[in-house]
């Protein structure tokens, strides 16, 4: 395929990384399963070793795969059409992430609007309340469960509000970094990218502080009923996404320092920026539905 009369779609030669990735995911699934089982029995097992082996394999895979990818990109093998493929792929991936969060938001709405109300006797459920949970009165945030577990509730002032402001600002700075890249203003790019990363790290730190506050002072834990469940699952998965996004931004930062990306060709940067905006939008929804309302 030496002669290039047409702009050809780049079909990569065979690559070891996908199968390495499959092995890594297999080890993670098998190891994570056994880690959970071991933990539930308070036993020290080998599950956690398999899990970490799997994570190591995935890291090797990511490193190798992205190295190949970057080399191909830098040597100009990629066409505009391939760039479209990557962008569309990333967009659909983000759509799948939205649907993942939708499952947990769905659980939140169902619990709050339907399950808790019915336990309190709403609709035609008077007997459910009278016979099964006679002392339970429906309320939200659910600070006392039908089973009698009590906890505090997290307000939206203070840390959550600061975090909202931080993340919204970081979305703006991320956009300015992108604009800098497109105008080929490398100083604007590196500066705003660095600010975005720092804001992401501050967010994660404050999130951690909020969890400590919730556990130690509010008695709000993962197992304190549906309010705590939805609170930690939604904020926890969001926090994991922010962590991943921050790592991606850091990788982008070092690639920028190495002189990668041009105003025309910067898929990785664009994907990271989209991901960051997505994480930000999810947080705004979280802030409204988990904290404020």
């Amino acid at each position, binding site marked *: *395929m030496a002669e290039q*009369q*047409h702009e*050809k*779609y780049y*079909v*990569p*030669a*065979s*690559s*070891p*990384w*996908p*199968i390495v*990735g*499959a092995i890594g*995911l*297999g080890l993670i*699934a*098998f190891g*994570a*399963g*056994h880690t*959970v*089982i071991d933990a*539930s029995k308070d036993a020290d097992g080998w599950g956690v070793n398999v899990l970490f082996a799997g994570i190591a394999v995935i890291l090797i895979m990511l490193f190798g*795969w992205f190295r190949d990818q970057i080399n191909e990109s830098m040597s100009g093998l990629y066409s505009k*059409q391939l760039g479209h*493929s*990557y962008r*569309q*792929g990333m967009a*659909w*991936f983000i759509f*799948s992430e939205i649907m*993942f969060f*939708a*499952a947990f938001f*769905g*659980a939140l709405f*169902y*619990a709050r609007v*339907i*399950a*808790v109300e*019915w*336990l309190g006797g709403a609709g035609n459920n008077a007997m459910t309340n009278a016979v*099964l*949970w006679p002392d339970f009165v429906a309320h939200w945030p659910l600070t006392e*469960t*039908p*089973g009698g*577990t009590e906890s505090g509730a997290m307000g939206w002032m203070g840390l959550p509000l600061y975090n909202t402001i931080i993340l919204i600002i970081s979305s703006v700075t991320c956009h300015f970094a992108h604009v800098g890249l497109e105008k080929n203003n490398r100083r604007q790019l590196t500066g705003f990218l660095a600010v975005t990363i720092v804001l992401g790290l501050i967010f994660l730190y404050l999130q951690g502080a909020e969890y400590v506050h919730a556990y130690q002072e509010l008695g709000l834990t*993962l*197992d304190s*009923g*549906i*309010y705590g*469940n939805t609170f930690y*699952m939604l904020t926890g998965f969001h926090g994991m996404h922010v962590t991943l996004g921050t790592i991606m931004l850091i990788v982008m930062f070092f690639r920028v320092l190495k002189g990668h990306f041009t105003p025309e060709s910067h898929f990785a940067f664009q994907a990271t920026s989209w991901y960051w905006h997505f994480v930000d939008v999810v947080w705004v929804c979280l802030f409204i539905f988990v904290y404020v309302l």
Partner: protein
Amino acid sequence: MSTVVGEMDHHDHHHHAPSGITRWLFTTNHKDIGSLYLWFSFIMFLVGGAMAMVIRAELFQPGLQLVEPHFFNQMTTVHGLIMVFGAVMPAFTGLANWMIPMMIGAPDMALPRMNNWSFWILPFAFAILLASLFMEGGGPAFGWTFYAPLSTTYSSDSTALFVFSVHIMGISSIMGAINVIVTIMNMRAPGMTYMKMPLFVWTWFITAFLLIAVMPVLAGAVTMVLTDKYFGTSFFDAAGGGDPVMFQHIFWFFGHPEVYIMILPSFGIVSAIIPAFSRKQLFGYASMVYATAAIAGLSFLVWAHHMFTTGMPVFAELFFMYCTMLISVPTGVKVFNWVATMWRGSITFEPPMMFALAFVILFTIGGFSGLMLAITPVDFQYHDTYFVVAHFHYVLVSGAIFSIMAAAYYWLPKWTGHMYDMGLAKLHFWASLISVNVLFFPMHFAGLAGMPRRIPDYSIQFADINQIVSIGGFAFGLSQLIFLWLVIKCVRGGEKAPAKPWEGAEGLEWTVPSPAPYHTFDTPPEVK
């Protein structure tokens, strides 16, 4: 529907397939990956089928004779999981891999390395799932729908492995679907507009959208099961303010689009085969596209028809009943279009057409029993009986599986370069057709008479029906070995297949030689 202008380029002779095991491990070629998917799905079909044989052997007579009830439950559960996620879905993904790039004139899938990753996750996922059967306490035994609290409070240790294996299956499906959707949006040859795409491409396009939309919801559902069982959350536990019925809502929000994921590509296959062997254009191409989209859209609004007996408010039951019935309108459009395509056609009955015709008739029977199940008050009687088992096996076995068989018989010459043994194929067809009806038709009556599903023993009055059903089951299982033998024979040799072995067939895939060269359409063909 589309014609190729200009000549095909044949300059890819120097790019032969690499040999040895690394070809299959490292491949980025859509045809290799398609073959891997198809073989994997067939192996899983046999594994899941063997479990069905265990079920039917136990149910051959009333009483408990062969297996423990707990093991019986594991068999029904893993049979379902394997057939849904291991057999039907990978078979369709395999067909998509093989055919979509050739049908739209693309050199390969849009993201070839990720394509290989999607495939190779599956053997690991299913190895974990199958290995969990050998754990202390046994494998998953809560039904493929893993309702809480069966999967939380009352499940065995292996649940964690089940959860993580479903997670990586989901990752595989999502990446596969992203690949299909991006390939279709971005890789069509010049002139291949959306409304010129073959219906198989269209149906997969919509299927891929459904997959990306609902597989993450399944991931959320299994995650909540995991935390409920192991980390003290109470999503599905009333004592903590949750609700076991909430599990069913989340599961079926995934589960109902999922059943269309398993049938929409079938519609595409049948819409390719019936015109080819009727030697007519497909009747109502545009309405087929719109009907598929309508079915997909409605699939998000019908999930609670699986839950009529959970005590939902009457308003919700009515809403979901009417939405479900609405689906019969676009589905009816499709069935009428297939029949209208055959009307006054010059029909011949080669094996692909035989399976496609059986699909139309038997899928319609399954559709009608679905319509019966959609009627809320009537469902109160049918719920969780063998009537339901009969219904979804009609749409999935004589529906989805028959269409996959039809596809295999239609495209095997293109894949292998050889014609297959027509006599053997017809034997496979008739054996499958008769046995599948002996297997599933009497189940309707058992269900109407009140025989519950997922139970290893039954009341004595169901003995005759179950014996007939089991005989049908064994016969259907054995019939599939004919297919295995036929495919192996066809791969190893046989009469040389021409580029277009079916005279009425249309589409870009028939413009390339058989077997299709390792790389097709390096430079895109022009479609008028």
